[in-house]
């Protein structure tokens, strides 16, 4: 009876007293018990007493990526270095969710330290894609994506540095929203690339994404990079009928799998049918973003991992996995005396160009359309075969991440292997309302080609 119910629907059922919060919680715990052993989406379940403070979320459970510090609840970032870390404080995002009455049902698996795009670098084993457990759900927020896709939670929270929400949402066949950098507080999120990191929701519907965003967004006095711009009523804004101009840049259609390309073309046609205009635009090649992203992110990773020096948290630096070690080495190199100008400084200059490039294009169009990932879910084991494979796979996500603009990934069909295909819309800074509005119209028109419905249906009670 509850299978596939969205957060919005569950709230309504609880409000009408057709079901209790406790029943909802127990329902999901039962499902986690049943399906998690095969999927490995959750690392830690919340057995701490549920003390909901607010009432808007009515105790509805959410899956939260394991890089959000949760007070008294183990938080590992999927690294054995933090195997026993129980935070003494709460991240702003989880605090806001708790304040709204949500229940953090558990902490989800991810690439260790969010280093990866497949959840395979987790020290606790990979998460499996609910559509095909021989495949990756994507990453690094793969645990949350798989949990929502298989309906082990009606929604969840992930974080993205460059693609870590959009790409697993795409591969797992759900909705993933990456807000503008600074729209959602990073306080209490175990840092990967501090100038890029961005928490966001992964959900079954656009309305749920808008709703969760409205709960977690806003200025945080504990995060100096959070924006003071007032947040909007995303759910209301989303439902106003508007038409937009969609920008199409050829560079964002290069090297796509044919099924993905076809699904994207079909999506453009649907937007046209909805009355949207399209316009060809010329953007910097996303290939530049790969190098820029790699240099800046590695430098920040080196810095952010320096605190795990073996003195605190109970584990030595030898517990770092191969990927973390590689990134620390590269970051150290690019920032070394004599190399800074050639790498980091140059990368920052190109980053400025990327930002200017987007600002220029967003004077003419409302969105840039594309896909978060040129192919659908890969088999487990593929990523580790090629160094920087993740960086190459995420090339359509990296320019937006470098610029800090918002973007969404929504399902637009299945490929020949019955695997979900994602479409992404990128917009100008703080235009989350517009992204949600357009996506909501698309959802109403297509119901996402029943991708989400089919995904959930694979995991019957």
């Amino acid at each position: 009876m509850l299978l596939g119910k969205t957060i919005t629907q569950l709230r309504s059922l609880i409000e009408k007293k057709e079901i209790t919060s406790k029943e909802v919680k127990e329902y999901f715990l039962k499902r986690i018990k049943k399906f998690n052993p095969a999927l490995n989406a959750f690392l830690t379940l919340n057995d701490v007493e549920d003390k909901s403070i607010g009432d808007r979320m009515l105790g509805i459970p959410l899956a939260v990526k394991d890089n959000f510090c949760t007070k008294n609840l183990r938080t590992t970032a999927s690294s054995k270095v933090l195997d026993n870390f129980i935070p003494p404080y709460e991240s702003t995002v989880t605090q806001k969710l708790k304040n709204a009455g949500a229940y953090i049902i558990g902490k989800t698996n991810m690439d260790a330290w969010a280093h990866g795009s497949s959840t395979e670098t987790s020290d606790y084993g990979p998460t499996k894609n609910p559509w095909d457990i021989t495949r990756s759900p994507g990453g690094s927020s793969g645990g949350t994506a798989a949990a929502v896709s298989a309906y082990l939670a009606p929604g969840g929270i992930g974080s993205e540095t460059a693609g870590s929400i959009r790409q697993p949402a795409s591969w797992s066949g759900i909705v993933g929203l990456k807000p503008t950098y600074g729209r959602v507080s990073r306080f209490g999120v175990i840092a990967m690339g501090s100038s890029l990191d961005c928490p966001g929701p992964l959900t079954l519907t656009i309305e749920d994404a808008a709703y969760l965003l409205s709960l977690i967004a806003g200025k945080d006095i504990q995060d100096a990079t959070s924006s003071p711009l007032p947040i909007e009523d995303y759910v209301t804004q989303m439902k106003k009928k508007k038409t937009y101009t969609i920008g199409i840049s050829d560079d964002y259609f290069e090297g796509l799998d044919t099924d993905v390309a076809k699904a994207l073309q079909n999506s453009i046609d649907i937007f046209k049918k909805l009355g949207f205009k399209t316009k060809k635009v010329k953007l910097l090649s996303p290939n530049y973003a790969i190098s820029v992203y790699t240099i800046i992110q590695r430098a920040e990773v080196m810095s952010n991992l320096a605190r795990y020096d073996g003195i605190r948290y109970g584990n030595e630096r030898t517990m770092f996995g191969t990927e973390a070690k590689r990134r620390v080495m590269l970051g150290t190199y690019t920032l070394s005396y004599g190399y800074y100008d050639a790498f980091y400084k140059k990368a920052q200059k190109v980053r400025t160009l990327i930002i200017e490039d987007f600002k220029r294009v967003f004077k003419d169009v409302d969105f840039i359309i594309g896909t978060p990932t040129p192919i659908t879910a890969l088999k487990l084991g593929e990523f580790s075969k090629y160094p920087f494979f993740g960086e190459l796979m995420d090339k359509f996500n990296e320019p937006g991440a470098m610029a800090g603009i918002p973007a969404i990934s929504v399902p637009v069909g299945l490929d020949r292997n019955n695997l979900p295909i994602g479409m992404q819309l990128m917009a100008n800074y703080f235009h989350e309302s517009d992204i949600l509005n357009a996506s909501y119209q698309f959802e109403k028109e297509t119901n996402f080609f029943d991708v989400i419905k089919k995904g959930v249906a694979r995991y019957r009670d």
Partner: protein
Amino acid sequence: MKTYQPVIGLEIHVELKTQTGMFCQCKVNQFDAKPNTHVCPVCLGLPGALPVPNKQAIEWTIKIGQALNCAINKHTKFDRKHYSYPDLPKGYQISQYDEPVAVGGHVSFEANYGTYKNEKRSFRIHRVHLEEDTGKLTHSGEDTLIDFNRSGTPLVEIVTEPDFTTSDDVKMFLEELHTIIRYLDVSDADMEKGTMRMEPNISVREILNPKSQNPNKPQITNFKLPSYKVEVKNINSFNFVKKAIDYEVKRHIEQLEQGKTPLQETRGWDSYKNITYSQRSKEEAHDYRYFPEPDIPPFEFSAEYIESIRKTLPELPQPKMFRFINKLKLKPIDAFTLTRGKEMSEYYEKAMSKINSLKSDINVKSEKLGQEIANFIINKKISIKLPIEDFVKRAVEMIQPIETDIKLLDEIVQKVISANQKSVSDYKSGKQNAIMFLVGQVMREMRGKADANTVISKLKEMLK
């Protein structure tokens, strides 16, 4: 014989006395607190914690820069400085690299003021920047304990140009700087507590043509710095700085005499043995891998904002000293002494303004008033711990000539002379001091209600 000249620059760290931390809300400067009782996720560097800069600390750093005649950068930012040490919980210190708060100033002052050696001095300030202090390590037996209470205390670093050639100049400069900081009221600059710490960078160069140069006045603009320098870390007394410099200069000259170049290294100061010792050589020097702190957006200060801070600058010790000399007609040495302490000089000024408002009621020559009050304070005749009203009351009593009852004085002088014939004959036989005994006797009989000068002249008159 070759002539050598020391080349010395200084790095000075000053902990600001803000209420809260540089990047967190913890109470700082809690010197007597139990270890690790004033800590939070931010100053402990816990995973996910983020720094939020302290506005007061930034404004105070601007103020220090202005007091040291620096230009204030309109664009400034924080950077991460990476090194690994147990007292540094994040593995990097949030500091400033290429855009410090203030650059290019100078400290100019009168050296040895009021003495025959009196000379002007001016030393250039390279930069002033803001960073966070580290935790504190305590070694006990096999164990090293870490106290993070100090972690995240706002810390200002002041760097001079290598303008010093003598340890005496260094000491005088540091005393002047210390006085300025105390005047600004932004730090206790208490060396015992470690809220002011000093690091001299020392090298010695050979002067090839000594006659063309006055070794006391280096040509600071146009010479090549020696190829090495030795940094002596974390000294907490002006005297130790002087001793460390003297020790190093002698050591370097000995090596240079043997045709060797002293090793570039970091050394420590052993205040028991009065020697420096090697801590870290150049090969072990850190590559700090600086990059802009992504957690804190850069700052843009408007000219108005910077000027509004300048308006809060108090009168600094040197201008105050000259005002005391020129306006209040104090002896230079006394003006210098009084202005060394902000509290003392402020107390003096308060006392003076109170006394001036009473002037019409008291009978005292006004041109000497300032100096007399200064004398009371400097010679500790009256404690400046007294409430200002009590101080003024006592001072007025001491300044005012005492009304002498002449009739009574005549009687008592007669009485004292006849009762002390021995002293009278001593005086008459030429022992001038003998009169002081008689003065004392008269004063006692008068119960102090007589002006000493009147008593002396009366006695002299009677003994003629």
